[in-house]
């Protein structure tokens, strides 16, 4: 009991506590960061790392914890990012009204779309979620009501934002906001994993027919996981909006979801620290590899070698493929040897081996 208390609550609290004092450290770390740790530039990068850590964790509720492979998670992040912004900037609401409204809409939308998409299972579920997310992306791009400003993106009306989060000087507050959000998501997932629905989610991932045989309606539980994960994602979208002072189309695109999938798998699916670590590391590398790609050492290489090195997404994609092929437990799998981790557990859920009996093709 005491060991669990230490492992589940005290360790994470200690880590988040240490991360909380980062903005107070005025140290220069030459190779890792261009500017001192407490400079706005570095803090903004760290804050976006933390937000992506949290977003990856919300994705992992579906993927790693319940065995649902969604390609449409970006829809709810985009909803949070855009709707909260539209509410204050276009409809001139108060910020807190926008936040409440956005969360409510995310709840209803994920209920409805989750209900429809969960009629399909496995890979078909993935395709359906992708299609819904694509519809959202088209809506944001075409902008029929002149709310999103299409390709320009929508800058937030800063007079409506909480003043503590406006301006370069307040970057440290944004960092703390991102950290607080990450901690909240982390402890919610921690608590859910031990709750009775959470245990059913895990059972669905490991063996869905068995859950059905035990008399439980697995679809209802999957919908629960879908809604929890989507509402948290929308909340993350609001933090994302504050962090980047507005909304751009990149959050609506299918690739945004795929990026989250990469983060979760690289870190280790179905593991809280894995997803968070994956999100943080991926975001950091995505930013820093650009700097390496444009460094003088790389510029001296022949073009055939230089081209791939200049593209962070290429390098991260290759790392991802290698991890899938040779290290299915992800980075945390290295530490947790011997336990079934990561993709090994999800395999059954999404792509079971048993060939189906089909009536004619």
């Amino acid at each position, binding site marked *: 009991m005491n060991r669990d208390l230490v492992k589940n609550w005290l360790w994470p609290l200690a880590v988040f506590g240490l991360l909380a004092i980062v903005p107070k450290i005025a140290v220069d770390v030459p190779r890792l960061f261009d500017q001192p740790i407490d400079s706005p530039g570095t803090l903004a990068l760290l804050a976006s790392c933390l937000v992506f850590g949290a977003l990856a964790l919300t994705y992992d509720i579906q993927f790693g914890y319940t065995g649902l492979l969604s390609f449409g998670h970006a829809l709810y992040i985009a909803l949070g990012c855009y709707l909260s912004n539209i509410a204050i900037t276009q409809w001139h609401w108060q910020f807190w009204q926008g936040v409440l409204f956005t969360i409510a809409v995310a709840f209803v939308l994920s209920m409805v779309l989750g209900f429809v998409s969960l009629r*399909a299972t*496995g890979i*078909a579920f993935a395709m359906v979620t992708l299609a819904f997310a694509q*519809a959202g992306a088209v809506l944001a791009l075409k902008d029929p009501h002149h709310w999103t400003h299409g390709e320009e993106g929508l800058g937030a009306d800063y007079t409506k934002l909480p003043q503590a989060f406006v301006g370069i000087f307040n970057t440290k507050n944004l960092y703390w906001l991102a950290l607080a959000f990450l901690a909240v998501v982390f402890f919610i997932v921690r608590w859910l994993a031990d709750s009775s629905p959470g245990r059913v989610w895990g059972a669905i991932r490991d063996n869905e027919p068995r859950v059905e045989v035990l008399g439980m309606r697995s679809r209802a539980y999957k919908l629960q996981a879908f809604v929890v994960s989507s509402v948290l994602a929308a909340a993350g979208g609001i933090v994302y909006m504050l962090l980047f002072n507005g909304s751009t189309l990149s959050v609506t695109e299918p690739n945004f979801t795929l990026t989250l*999938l990469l983060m979760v798998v690289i870190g280790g699916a179905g593991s809280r620290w894995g997803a968070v670590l994956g999100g943080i590391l991926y975001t950091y590398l995505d930013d820093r590899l650009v700097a390496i790609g444009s460094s003088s050492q790389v510029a001296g290489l022949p073009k055939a070698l230089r081209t791939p090195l200049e593209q962070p997404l290429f390098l*991260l994609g*290759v790392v*991802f493929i290698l991890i899938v092929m040779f290290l299915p437990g992800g980075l945390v799998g290295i530490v947790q040897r011997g336990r079934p981790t990561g993709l090994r557990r999800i395999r059954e859920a*999404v792509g079971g081996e048993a060939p189906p009996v089909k009536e004619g093709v």
Partner: protein
Amino acid sequence: MSTFLLLTITGLGLGAMYFLIASGLSLIYGLMGVLNFAHGAFISVGGYGTWWFQTNVFDGIDSLLWRWLLSAFMGLVLGGAFAALVELVLIRPLYSRHIEQVLVTVGLQLAFVALLIGGFGADAKPYTVPPWLHDTTTVFGAHIPNDRWIEIATAIVVLALLQLFLRKTRYGLIIRAGVENRAMVQALGIDVRKAFTLVFAIGGIAAAIAGVLSGVYFNVVGPEQGTSLLIFAFIVVVIGGLGSIGGSAAAAVVVGLTQQYTNYYASAGIGDMVVVLLLGVVLLTRPRGFAGAVVGARA
């Protein structure tokens, strides 16, 4: 009337490209249970391969038609070879681990788009084709761009060839049997893995054809073109019923036409939404898709 006809033919042209992509996706899924995201890369190999041969190798050929045809042929060869290579190097080692196979194709697709942007730039490349392809033919008062006919005809030929191959050849038989019950085919002592490589190569060639034609349709090839076509092909595959070529063809026509009509008569962008709505309706009323194969049966 003439507008309606133009929309119909254009919709069919678009549907033709969806079909070319969806047929391979559907076969691969039906046989192997893999949702192949790398299909977007196969499309790009066809499109960029043709463009590269046009501008670097065959630029000495004066006849634009021959230059285009030869380059397109090389694009298809590259597409098929690349797809077979992907199967051998990335998919085969993960045999029967479906989730990993899907993830690997996702990673490949993302890395490939990044590589295209790095190698050829983020901007779209102009595509040279025989000028008559962009002339119009007047049919019942409608001015129809000639490339639409080529797209439709190609899709029909590919559909016919695929059906012939699946119905009349030994490998076609193995593939059809494998889609229905792979374990039984293996139990009969047939090495079904050869069929996997073959299906990937066929799917890769069909996707490369779609890449070549999309270059003609949009006048350019761009790094993201494959991805955007792929998403609608996914919808076509689900609506048509996974694993069914005929279902894919029917669904491709429905999706292409719906998109064109609503984009014109309602407003631009609505067509894409309506197609997604259609997918929702099909799933709610007929979860098996048009052709009756169980959606998601492999889960």
